[in-house]
């Protein structure tokens, strides 16, 4: 065995979720003493590769080797020193820091384990984040989000019975301020110098460039570039993430939008760009997933409708992307799921008019092409794409002038997408306004105007020909530390 045996290497790995190829034959490895930066836009396959490496996801094809030995699984990954700091924090809020440390490190056992754990975790926290001021006996729930992230990072760098060999950091600085982020990056560089390996994912390209020794760029489930960090600049990195093929011509027709503003907001969340929307406009909310786009849609909707009084005319309608979370009613039929958004118009004397409801259902079944023999079948008998059509129909059937869409095309087949795009165009030219959060570049390019979000705020407004993949990527990834 050579001393440069990779800590982990995956060969020709394929992972598919339904029709979506999350990883399409990927070769990837991390060697000892290497800090690999992993970048790519939404859906490029970053999270999937992380989950394959930490053993949480078995690839459908291909093999995975830890220090040259084949075989996957979470326990094997851990046995070979693979640690993972998750983007969504994985600490138990009702337990103390020490108890959370014990959960990750089964080696802390026997009489007096709390004391040993407290000593170990305090020492490691002092090392990574000098002057942190966190009490190891504090309950995690009482810590701030930044402190929790610091604790989670320290726990993963801890040595109890075995040393960490590869630490995966998935957006580790998302809740840390600049000085804490710098402390972490300094520690990561030292850890790597001493022979450890790190896999770093971040939307702050400055961190990636300054910390990584090698940068891997992913796109559409493939590794497109893997080169030493020194060969990249912020500009070339953004270019590498973009499409290999030439962009298709924009199909958006900007002529339909009128000057009549339907929403105008003052800049929020530390952003300098105000948000506004005009009648008949299709507005895209872009940027990496979870950077404040959904929050904005929910806030807009909450302002427009009362929680106490039924409103006769609705101003906004919402199309869910996470259907089970805030879209469908699982015990109901397709028809009831459709008509719930529009009951007052289908009612007489406060009672639902059955014949009118049925006609409404048949009408929208035909208009949206909902594929079902009977609208009285349960909603869950439909495929995801057809359920999504029902949610679209619910919004379009209402008299709302503004339709909010929360990444609604997630996991929808291409045919359905094309049908829905055409409907959106038609409705927009009829005067409806659409505010569309999408994680897919192709969809964002259909919009008249695009706001790019980063860290919960709007960082750029693009319109007309400026709506390009390159500009959106450049705005989604910040050059410097936050």
């Amino acid at each position: 065995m050579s001393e440069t045996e990779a800590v982990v290497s995956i060969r020709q790995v394929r992972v598919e979720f339904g029709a979506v190829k999350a990883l399409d034959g990927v070769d990837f490895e991390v060697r000892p003493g290497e800090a690999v930066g992993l970048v790519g836009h939404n859906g490029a396959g970053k999270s999937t590769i992380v989950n394959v490496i930490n053993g949480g996801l078995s690839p459908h094809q291909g093999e995975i080797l830890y220090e040259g030995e084949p075989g996957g699984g979470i326990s094997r990954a851990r046995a070979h020193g693979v640690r993972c700091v998750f983007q969504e924090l994985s600490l138990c809020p009702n337990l103390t820091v020490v108890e959370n440390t014990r959960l990750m490190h089964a080696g802390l056992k026997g009489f007096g384990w709390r004391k040993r754990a407290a000593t170990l975790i305090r020492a490691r926290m002092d090392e990574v984040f000098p002057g942190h001021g966190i009490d190891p006996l504090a309950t995690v729930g009482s810590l701030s989000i930044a402190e929790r992230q610091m604790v989670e990072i320290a726990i993963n760098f801890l040595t109890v019975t075995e040393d960490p060999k590869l630490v995966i950091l998935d957006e580790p600085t998302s809740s840390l301020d600049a000085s804490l982020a710098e402390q972490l990056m300094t520690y990561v560089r030292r850890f790597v110098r001493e022979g450890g390996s790190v896999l770093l994912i971040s939307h702050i390209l400055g961190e990636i460039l300054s910390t990584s020794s090698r940068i891997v760029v992913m796109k559409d489930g493939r590794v497109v570039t893997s080169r030493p960090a020194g060969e990249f600049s912020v500009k070339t990195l953004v270019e590498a993430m973009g499409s290999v093929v030439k962009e298709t011509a924009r199909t958006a027709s900007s002529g339909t939008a009128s000057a009549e503003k339907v929403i105008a907001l003052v800049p929020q969340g530390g952003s300098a760009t105000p948000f506004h929307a005009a009648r008949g406009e299709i507005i895209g909310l872009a940027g990496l997933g979870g950077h404040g786009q959904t929050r904005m849609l929910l806030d807009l909707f909450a302002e427009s409708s009362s929680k106490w009084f039924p409103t006769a005319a609705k101003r906004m309608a919402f199309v869910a992307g996470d259907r089970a979370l805030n879209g469908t009613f699982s015990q109901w039929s397709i028809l009831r799921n459709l008509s719930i958004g529009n009951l007052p118009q289908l009612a007489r004397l406060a009672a639902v008019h059955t014949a009118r409801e049925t006609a409404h259902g048949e009408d929208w079944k035909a208009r949206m092409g909902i594929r079902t023999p009977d609208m009285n079948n349960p909603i869950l008998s439909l495929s995801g794409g057809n359920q999504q059509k029902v949610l679209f129909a619910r919004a379009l059937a209402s008299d709302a002038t503004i339709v909010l869409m929360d990444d609604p095309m997630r996991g929808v087949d291409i045919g359905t997408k094309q049908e829905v795009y055409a409907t959106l165009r038609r409705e927009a030219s009829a005067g409806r306004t659409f505010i569309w959060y999408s994680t897919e570049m192709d969809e964002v390019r259909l919009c008249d105007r695009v706001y790019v979000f980063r860290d919960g705020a709007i960082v750029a407004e693009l319109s007309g020909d400026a709506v390009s993949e390159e500009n959106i990527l450049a705005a989604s990834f910040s050059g410097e530390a936050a």
Partner: protein
Amino acid sequence: MNRLSLLSRKPWTWSFVAALATWIVTILFTGGASTASLTQATLTFAAFSVIVGLGQMLVITLGPGNVDLSVPATITLSGTVALKLMDGQDGMILAGLAVSIAIGLAIGIVNYAMIKFLRIPPIIATLSMSFLVQSTAIWYNRGLRVKPPEELASFTTSSTFGVPNTALVALLLSLAVWWLLDRAIFGRWISAIGQNAFSARMAGIAVDGCRLATYVLCAVLASVCGYLLASFSGGAALNMGAEYLLMSIAVVVIGGSAVAGGNSNVPGIWGASLFMFLVVSMLNTYGFGAGVRLIMTGLIIICVIVAASRPAGSAR
């Protein structure tokens, strides 16, 4: 698909099958002698469970965690206050009813205010409310036993065309609630909230308004029940609501409404209420002691629930 198999798919069928079976078994023991009187008594007493159960059913429809435990105290307070106000005078019958309803309105509003603004889980909020209400009833009652107005007492204890008047009132209220739940927009709204409150919110439903209305309806139905029950039994007693705590929840569950919310039905409340009274009558007829009777009641309820809990998922 024939009519019979269509019927057997309804979740409330089991409660009626159980009620009918219990009725037959009881009649068989007495050799048919008490058929009429048993039926009369069953309808009379089931009527009170139906009225309370309807309200509880609406609240349970709102989804996991929603339940109104202040029902027994509401019954007691409403009965106590109404009877003392009417003071046996026939002219005050409507005023007494109005006060009962007002008490229900107030309790319902306070219940939901605690749930919403103090963020207390419904089970705790309504339970603590029930202590407050019960204490008020004790303070107000002070051991008085006021007779109900003559006309009201005779109305609640007599029958029209052989059907007890209380059962007729319960039937009217059931029709109203059935319309509200199955036909009105309001019913769709509370069913939507019960399935997924977040989805309901994002579909534009005024979630808090609906919940408030539901808790108020439940308290009003309980207070109407208290008014009738006190008049029927010749005076209010401080423990008159006690048995309706479990009863109101049991009739919802046995009646085939989903405990997790979102899917309720009115006929089941009737089947279950008749069944609950008949089980006690049957065990009485067979001469069991109080202890055995309680154990048997519990076992029979468990059997019915097990029988009734078939895989759900038939679309409506």
